[in-house]
């Protein structure tokens, strides 16, 4: 069913180059992360922070304490942000005199940034004051991403089982990730972005005379600094409404590639850090390999789908072929400076790493291209964002271990620990979270007349828009398919709930799994034990991921993008 038009050599070379650079960065950055997760020394700013927070960095936490601290910390941040957004008319730095967001919208915004979703049901400049943007959004860009990595660090330590039932200290993890990873990396990346022409200024706007003789006010701001953490932390909330399609956020193909590299940087390197923590680097590479394969296949499918073009546009007279002067393909909703290849790469990356920023409108992707982005978010473990991807992937590793472990004639063991009823229960709870939230809320939305009023398109495409909204929210991605008016009380409330379900109903059970496994005696490996660090096992995990994780959504996908695609082939326009 895939279109037969192949992308040009130049397009493929670009993508391979970006993937190669990304792969080369895995080891050095993985080492850095490993050092952050295991180092014994605290730096001076860190010690100062602990003193200010009045926490004891030496306090060991078991999974219960760690999870409780994480949840309470997030809860306090949620309440404070909600209060700040609601109180913005009475707070400083609100030159435009913007009113407070409605309670539902404020709830949605606060949850969205706390869960690292960065779903924006509003338009930033018309709804949030500078103070709200800085105090809420920008702070969360660091802390929510760091929360995810802290959870991942605790999770990995638990699986490594190096410290008994103790998973580390939440405050130390959070602080170190911000100070040692995000701040220095964001600074460096921001400098490159500035070199490429991304604005970094405190001046608000420039006024320009257009060729038609009209006056245009061009918005500026400290864009570069926001862009760097937006992608490093796989946050995704843009400075401008157009997000990374805006020339000031993403001016050149080089910045586009840099954004992609930033999104992949930490999620890919985390697999290597995991391998080191386990003292089994093969294991890290097998996980990386499985994720990378899924990513490469997704990217390839997305590229082919977009390169194939849209027959409806073709029929209308658009030339979508690859020629010496154009890269061809479906250019609807894409930026000319990126073309099909760089757009496909960005779309595949932003949904794989659950960033949510976009450099093209996903609503205008071909139906199959849109399907790829949906599937990646539904799995939420093809690298995945901020540590959560690795945690989600582990669900499927454990499921695979259960099936495969039995098939070698032993009760299942993962990393030397027996997988028993309690762990299976928690893993299944986490596995249930995605279908429960995505399918449940979508079903609700297509049933309630109030919710259906938000749809701009009928039929399969409209269905895809709703499905995409809840998938994006549940996967804490935050990208919007557009075409859906999500700023209604119904959507604000339900997408908020979806974001919470997607984040905490996977993260907390899996943290518990790590805690339970950490407390178990290690079974020494022998030739009779199942090895999880082999290509065979990696392949099995991918199969389980596709059958258990993706097949669940096949009916919904069939009714959405697949139908859309088949109708497009017949020339029906929506």
């Amino acid at each position, binding site marked *: *069913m895939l279109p037969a038009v192949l992308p040009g050599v130049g397009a493929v070379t670009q993508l391979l180059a970006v993937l190669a650079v990304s792969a080369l960065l895995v080891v050095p950055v993985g080492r850095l992360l490993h050092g952050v997760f295991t180092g014994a020394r605290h730096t001076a700013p860190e010690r100062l922070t602990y003193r200010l927070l009045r926490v004891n960095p030496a306090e060991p936490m078991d999974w219960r304490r760690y999870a409780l601290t994480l949840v309470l910390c997030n809860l306090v941040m949620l309440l404070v942000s909600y209060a700040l957004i609601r109180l913005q008319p009475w707070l400083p730095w609100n030159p435009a005199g913007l009113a407070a967001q409605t309670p539902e919208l404020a709830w949605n915004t606060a949850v969205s940034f706390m869960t690292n979703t960065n779903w924006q049901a509003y338009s930033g400049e018309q709804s949030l004051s500078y103070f709200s943007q800085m105090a809420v959004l920008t702070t969360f860009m660091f802390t929510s991403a760091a929360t995810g990595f802290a959870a991942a660090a605790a999770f990995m330590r638990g699986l490594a089982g190096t410290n008994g039932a103790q998973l580390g200290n939440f405050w130390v993890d959070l602080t170190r990730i911000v100070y040692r990873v995000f701040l220095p990396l964001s600074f460096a990346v921001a400098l490159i972005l500035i070199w490429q022409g991304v604005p970094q200024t405190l001046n608000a706007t420039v006024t320009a005379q257009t060729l038609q003789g009209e006056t245009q006010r061009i918005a500026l701001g400290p864009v570069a600094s926001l862009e760097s953490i937006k992608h490093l932390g796989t946050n995704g909330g843009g400075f401008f409404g157009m997000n990374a399609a805006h020339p000031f956020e993403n001016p050149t193909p080089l910045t586009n590639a840099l954004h992609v590299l930033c999104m992949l940087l930490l999620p890919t390197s985390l697999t290597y850090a995991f391998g080191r923590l386990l003292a089994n680097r093969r294991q890290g590479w097998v996980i990386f390999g499985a994720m990378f394969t899924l990513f490469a296949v997704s990217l390839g499918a997305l590229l082919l789908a977009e390169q194939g073009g849209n027959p409806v546009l073709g029929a209308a007279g658009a030339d979508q072929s690859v020629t010496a002067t154009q890269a061809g393909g479906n250019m609807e909703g894409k930026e000319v400076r990126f073309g099909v290849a760089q757009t496909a790469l960005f779309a595949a990356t932003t949904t794989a790493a659950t960033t949510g920023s976009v450099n093209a409108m996903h609503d205008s992707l071909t139906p199959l291209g849109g399907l790829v982005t949906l599937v990646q978010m539904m799995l939420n473990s093809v690298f995945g964002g901020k540590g959560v991807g690795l945690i989600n992937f582990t669900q499927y590793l454990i*499921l695979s271990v*259960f*099936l*495969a472990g*039995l*098939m*070698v*004639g*032993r*009760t*299942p063991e993962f990393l*030397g620990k027996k997988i*028993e*009823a309690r762990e*299976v*229960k928690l*893993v*299944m*709870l986490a*596995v*249930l979270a995605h*279908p429960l939230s995505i*399918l*449940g809320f*979508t*079903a609700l939305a*297509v*049933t309630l007349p109030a919710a*259906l009023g938000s749809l701009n398109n009928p*039929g*399969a495409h409209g*269905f895809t828009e709703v499905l995409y909204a809840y998938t994006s929210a549940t996967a804490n991605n935050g990208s919007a398919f557009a075409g859906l008016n999500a700023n209604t009380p119904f959507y604000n409330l339900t997408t908020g709930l979806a974001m919470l379900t997607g984040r905490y109903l996977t993260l907390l059970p899996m943290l518990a799994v790590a805690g339970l496994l950490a407390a178990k*005696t*290690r*079974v*020494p490996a022998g*030739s*009779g*034990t*199942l*090895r999880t660090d*082999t290509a*065979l096992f990696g392949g*099995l995990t991918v*199969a*389980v991921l596709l*059958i*258990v994780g993706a*097949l*669940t959504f*096949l*009916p*919904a996908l*069939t*009714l959405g993008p*697949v*139908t859309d695609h*088949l109708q497009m082939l*017949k020339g029906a326009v929506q």
Partner: protein
Amino acid sequence: MSAGVRAAPLPPASRPPEPPASGDRKPGIFAPPLLRAALVASVRKLSPRAQARNPVMFVVYVGTFVTLLLTAQAAAQGRPWAYELTVTALLALTVLLANFAEGLAEARGKAQAASLRSAREDVTARRLTDGREETVPGALLRRGDLIVAESGDLIPADGEIVEGLASVDESAITGESAPVIREAGTDHSGVTGGTRVLSDRIVVRVTSGAGESFLDRMIALVEGASRQKTPNEIALGILLSGLTLVFLLATVTLYPFTAYAGAPAAPVTLVALLVCLIPTTIGGLLPAIGIAGMDRALQANVIAGSGKAVEVAGDVDVLLLDKTGTITVGNRLATDFRPLPGVDPADLMRAALLSSLQDPTPEGRSIVALARERGVNAPEPAGAEFVEFSAQTRMSGVDFVTPAGPVSIRKGAGSRVADLARERGAAVPPELTGITDAMARGGATPLVVIENSRLLGAVALSDVIKPGIRDRFEQLRRMGLRTVMITGDNPLTAAAIAREAGVDSFLAEATPEDKLAMIREEQRGGRLVAMMGDGTNDAPALAQADVGLAMNSGTQAAREAGNMVDLDSDPTKLLEIIEIGKGLLITRGALTTFSVANDVAKYFAILPALFVTAYPDLGALNVMRLHSPASAVLSAVIFNALIIPALVPLALRGVPYRPMSASSLLGRNLLVYGLGGLLLPFVAIKVTDLLITPLF
């Protein structure tokens, strides 16, 4: 620990006539009586209580009622209802077939147990009360009662001999027709109900009253209602329930999704889709697999105390094996005479011969045979007094008087005989240690011979390694198991035998305490340990081991400490048990994988059928080119139902375990059950569709 010498079979002349065959031990899977019992069970298990034990099948059960209601509704509204009724019937069939699989496994297990039990029904017992003997029905016996059994009597209950010695025919239980000796106060003091005393008279203390013997416990383990799920079965059950919930979500939400698309999916088809997607194949067969595992243990003449014990056997990492009987044939044989310098070899041989003439042990007899073979012969001296081997002296020998004076010959362990030599005022030549050490290094046990105050040399007693045992250990190593040989021998001898037999390590001069300590040490390292034992002093180690297999011939203490009893008292049985445990787990994993992999084809069969009304374009997904939406759904449901009985033989016999590394085993099973499970339903559903097409 026992000396490891198994009760020797009686000479053929004293054997009683062959006992009636205790029934075919391995009846065909679909033997008519079993089939009848299974059919009855499949209906009887339809009660909601029985169904609720299995969440996956419970969903099918509820689904059947839902489709039945939908059929009635269609009929009441005057719409066609044949399709609805067919789906209902097929779902009901699915439930019945799952019940049937469980019922068949139960029937087989019960038949196996019943054939063992039949021997003990209507037995009368001769109970001793205050020294008086009275005849009571065997069913009235209580734990602690004393009973008398004489030649010809059936022993009415499990017990321990407190007085006397008897030869017992255990063929009803073990299938082995050679009688065995059971004797009070030895490690062979246990008797089992249903076995027959052939000679002599014994007094037995009953150790389990009616209804609590090993057999009764075993029968309970194969009966569905009282069967306790094993830990792994529970975990797998949770996994399957979780998958069921996921697929429940996927199908239930399809109704609003299709309603939005303008053509709500037929609820009957949605139920059909749900039933096809949830793991009914493994869900339906899971109880049968567990029961069949117990049944296979029973067929191997092993009675397990719990299903868990069999399951754990698959996980065992370390095997503690007694040297004698397991690795070597029971007896050591003389293989060489090594005289000290200056001693005539003939003198050594003659002394060894004389001291062994009245020695009834196989070792003693082999010394006589070897000496004679080497041309030394001597008549038994008149008035010779044989000194038996005792654990204290660790020597045996003979005393007699010749015209030259009294002669006292002793043979025994090197250190003890050297002590004796010193007591008798003789010097111990340094060469003696050289000789004995060389023998020990070669795997033999040196027996030093002394005549009066003159040390003569040593006899080498060598162990005979069982044929094929080396290959067996090689297999075990490939399976990832470590073998440890337990022996009372000295470290040098033990090392040589260990090398020759190919075990991974050994515990020499082992005491029961050493054994216990070793088990604890391995368990601290996270390893699971299996061992076999029979003596009372083995009891703590048997209890500590993760798999403790007690020999049925062993003492009551040993049998109660272990979690399994081997009716054959066969020391190599441990290996079989491990294979049964692994086979059980593999069967579960293989069928789960198969069941989950089946879903892909079922999606492609049902989804186009489900959506084609709303979006005719989705007909393109009908990759199997099935005849019509109705035929596609029915074909998938038929496949889903019939795959259960089709896999019953596999579930009951178990996926055969082949000793190989985990990686190759995984690759193999993934190919067969994963890829097979992915592809087979495409073919089967297409064929079914072709077959039922004429009906439309």
